[in-house]
């Protein structure tokens, strides 16, 4: 099947999200849809998926014009949209998820479970998936959930599948599993639109690329003709730095030391020490325990044994409130779940951590927070209209900067950044890197938790690599390469 999208326009209010965009995709190819956050990728795919209506333009299926009033119609026509947050019910077995909403029923609405299991087995066999349909979805890891979604799309005879950032929460091994699946689909003549921010993956799995910027189609072509650098340049519209970042190193005395810290099976016998002005990367694969380790140091979760020594004194951190008063800041991962407070406006989100420090008799000193935030807006380059707008009116990158402002407002001595560039576009990413550099110059000990080896290498003075709750090794200087980090992260040893 061939899908052509021609001259699509879409605006929300005065905001023109798509301007005369035309793309096409055929069965049997994998096309990367690239662009920064807010470039119009999601809008375009939502139009194709029948989620939102278009303002102008046409959609042609094999040359015939179609209109999708809702997602069901689009699905009917053979277009499946696999959303980033998967549409699976954790508490149902796989086969019931496969037939969710289209159950095979007998008389009096009785479900024909056996038949549904058989159908699912058939699909799994065809797609060479080694799963028992009776497994609960809850027990699957993220990649298998993705695969179940793909199989469900296949069962509905999809000829075009849209995959919205399917690999964000997957480990390397799981990503490979999903890619194999995608290649298998391609061989069967299915067309895939692959939305991703990870350019390396795009190079690995895609045949063609389409780049959107500010609602315009700016580039398209065959993947074999370009490099990741080219793609990044298309996305941002100018050259992107990839060299290591440098700064005036201003490293002084030790601020934080951890000795033999352990908590259940999340992390064991952790020892490290961090000095003021240092940038230390903590990396590893999913399930390495790095988030849990630093949440424990921040007081958000407990630990069983070991010592935390802050500024030379042994301390306990019973709660995040304590950590905050000591001068430890923690930018959590997963901004939407752990960072954003959606019913509060921008400035409240930026200042909540420092309310108690500035308040007199429990009264919030709004003036002080406003003055501080004016400064931060400049240093963090936050693009926004009004302090009192809702936090959700900002783009992902600006939201992340607001949450970063929250932590800078307490004047931290130690700043833990858990996946600071998650869901952030290329431009904002560079801004955040610059901020991190500046903070270190000012003498803050910065700890960057990230799964992206490149990010760690560019930013950090040294990297601690974790594996299944243990520190597997530490690399610095010339030793700090993607290969070495990967060896340690997968449980190997450097020689």
């Amino acid at each position: 099947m061939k899908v052509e999208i021609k001259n699509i326009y879409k605006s929300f209010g005065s905001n023109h999200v798509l301007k005369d965009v035309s793309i096409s995709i055929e069965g049997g190819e994998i096309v990367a849809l690239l662009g920064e956050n807010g470039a119009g990728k999601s809008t375009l795919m939502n139009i194709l998926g029948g989620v939102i209506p278009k303002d102008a333009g046409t959609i042609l299926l094999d040359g015939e014009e179609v209109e999708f009033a809702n997602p069901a119609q689009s699905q009917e026509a053979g277009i499946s949209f696999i959303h980033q947050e998967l549409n699976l019910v954790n508490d149902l077995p796989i086969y019931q998820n496969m037939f969710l909403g289209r159950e095979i029923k007998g008389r009096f609405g009785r479900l024909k479970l056996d038949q549904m299991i058989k159908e699912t087995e058939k699909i799994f066999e065809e797609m060479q998936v080694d799963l028992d349909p009776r497994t609960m979805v809850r027990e699957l890891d993220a990649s298998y959930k993705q695969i179940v979604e793909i199989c469900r799309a296949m069962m509905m005879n999809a000829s075009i599948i849209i995959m919205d950032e399917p690999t964000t929460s997957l480990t390397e091994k799981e990503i490979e599993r999903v890619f194999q699946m995608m290649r298998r689909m391609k061989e069967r003549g299915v067309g895939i639109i692959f939305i991703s921010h990870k350019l390396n993956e795009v190079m690995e799995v895609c045949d063609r690329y389409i780049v959107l910027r500010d609602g315009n189609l700016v580039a398209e072509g065959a993947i074999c003709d370009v490099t990741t650098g080219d793609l990044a340049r298309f996305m941002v519209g100018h050259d992107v730095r990839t060299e290591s970042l440098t700064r005036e190193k201003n490293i002084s005395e030790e601020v934080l030391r951890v000795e033999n810290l352990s908590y259940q099976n999340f992390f064991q016998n952790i020892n490290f020490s961090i000095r003021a002005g240092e940038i230390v990367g903590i990396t590893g694969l999913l399930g390495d325990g790095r988030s849990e380790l630093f949440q424990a140091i921040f007081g958000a979760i407990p630990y069983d044994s070991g010592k935390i020594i802050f500024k030379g004194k042994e301390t306990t951190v019973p709660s995040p409130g304590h950590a905050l008063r000591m001068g430890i800041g923690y930018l959590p991962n997963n901004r939407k779940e752990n960072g954003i407070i959606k019913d509060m406006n921008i400035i409240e989100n930026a200042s909540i951590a420092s309310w108690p420090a500035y308040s007199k008799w429990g009264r919030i000193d709004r003036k002080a927070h406003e003055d501080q935030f004016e400064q931060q807006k400049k240093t963090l380059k936050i693009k926004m209209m009004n302090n009192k707008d809702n936090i959700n009116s900002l783009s992902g990158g600006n939201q992340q900067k607001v949450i970063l402002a929250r932590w800078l407002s307490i004047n931290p001595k130690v700043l833990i950044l858990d996946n600071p560039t998650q869901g952030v576009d290329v431009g904002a990413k560079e801004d955040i890197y610059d901020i991190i550099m500046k903070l270190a110059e000012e003498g803050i000990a910065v700890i960057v938790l990230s799964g992206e080896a490149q990010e760690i290498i560019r930013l950090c003075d040294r990297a601690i690599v974790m594996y299944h709750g243990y520190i597997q090794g530490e690399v610095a200087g010339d030793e700090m390469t993607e290969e070495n980090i990967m060896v340690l992260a997968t449980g190997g040893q450097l020689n």
Partner: protein
Amino acid sequence: MMENTKRNFFSWFKYKWNAEPLFSIFLVFLVMVILQTLVLGFDYDSFGEWFQTWLNNWINILRNNAATGIIALGMTLVIMTGGIDLAVGSTLVAVGAMLMMLIDTGTKGILAGFGFEGALAFILAIILVLIFGYLLGSFNGVLVAFGRIPPFIATLGTMMVYRSVTQHFMQGYNPTVPVDFLQIASLKIGNFMIMPIIYWLLIALILHYVSQKTTFGRQIIAVGSNEKAAKLSGVNVNRVKFHVYALMCVLVAIGSVIQVSRIGAMDFANAGRGLEMDAIAAAVVGGTSMMGGRGSVAGTVLGMLIIAVMNNLLNLFGVPPFLRDAFKGFIVIAAVLMQRKERI
């Protein structure tokens, strides 16, 4: 030109309606007041006389709803943290019984037994019942915040406990409230019996300040909106929850003092039954989200007034009493439908 201003007005109106929950709530309230004014037979010629009736009617409405109005304010804060307090009716009775036992002029009066009488006894009694309310609320707070019991279950439990224990202790004994105590609610200012209204207004102003300007008040919203993020931002979530439930029952205690001093008696078996629902209704009509994170003190005052004016209208129209709750039900549902559009 004409067309243009019209459009501007409509778009302004639409924006306000969508963006500011208080705006739509206030408009609904305004419409109901106008309706009520018309029903009361507005007549320009005999304005003075009409105004007298209108004013008396309003004072009645406000006074009758003051106790529930105060309790609804506490309920708003509780709901804003994402919780609920079903035990307010039972707490009202427990506090009321304690209060009446303290000031009883009959054989069992506690304070009289210690030789306290008159104004001193009343002040002492009020202080003691406020503390008692705080303790009852603390118990709810401990269960919810530290025991991690869902608020619905925890307060469902204490709802039964508080009333049952109260009834057991009272065993049908009916304390006599001293006549002077009734002055707390019925003292006249000028020619008007407006003390309960003053209490309500005062508490509303204080709570408005607390919820808008203080760390505690804003942390309530943070906890209700995203508990995990609030915790990771250094908010002591358990402390906030504990204090909200304790404050709730202090407000119930104030409501109880007003109720006792207004009526001079309390039916321990039935008083306060359905009070929690009235309070929740006022909060919800006033724009409080049951999911937590959204709501305002001003909204709940308006919500309470909307329900009160509606009751008054039903009265004036002569709607049969059994049907009135149906109207209340409709207005709650309508209010939530109206506000639903904002939440996506």
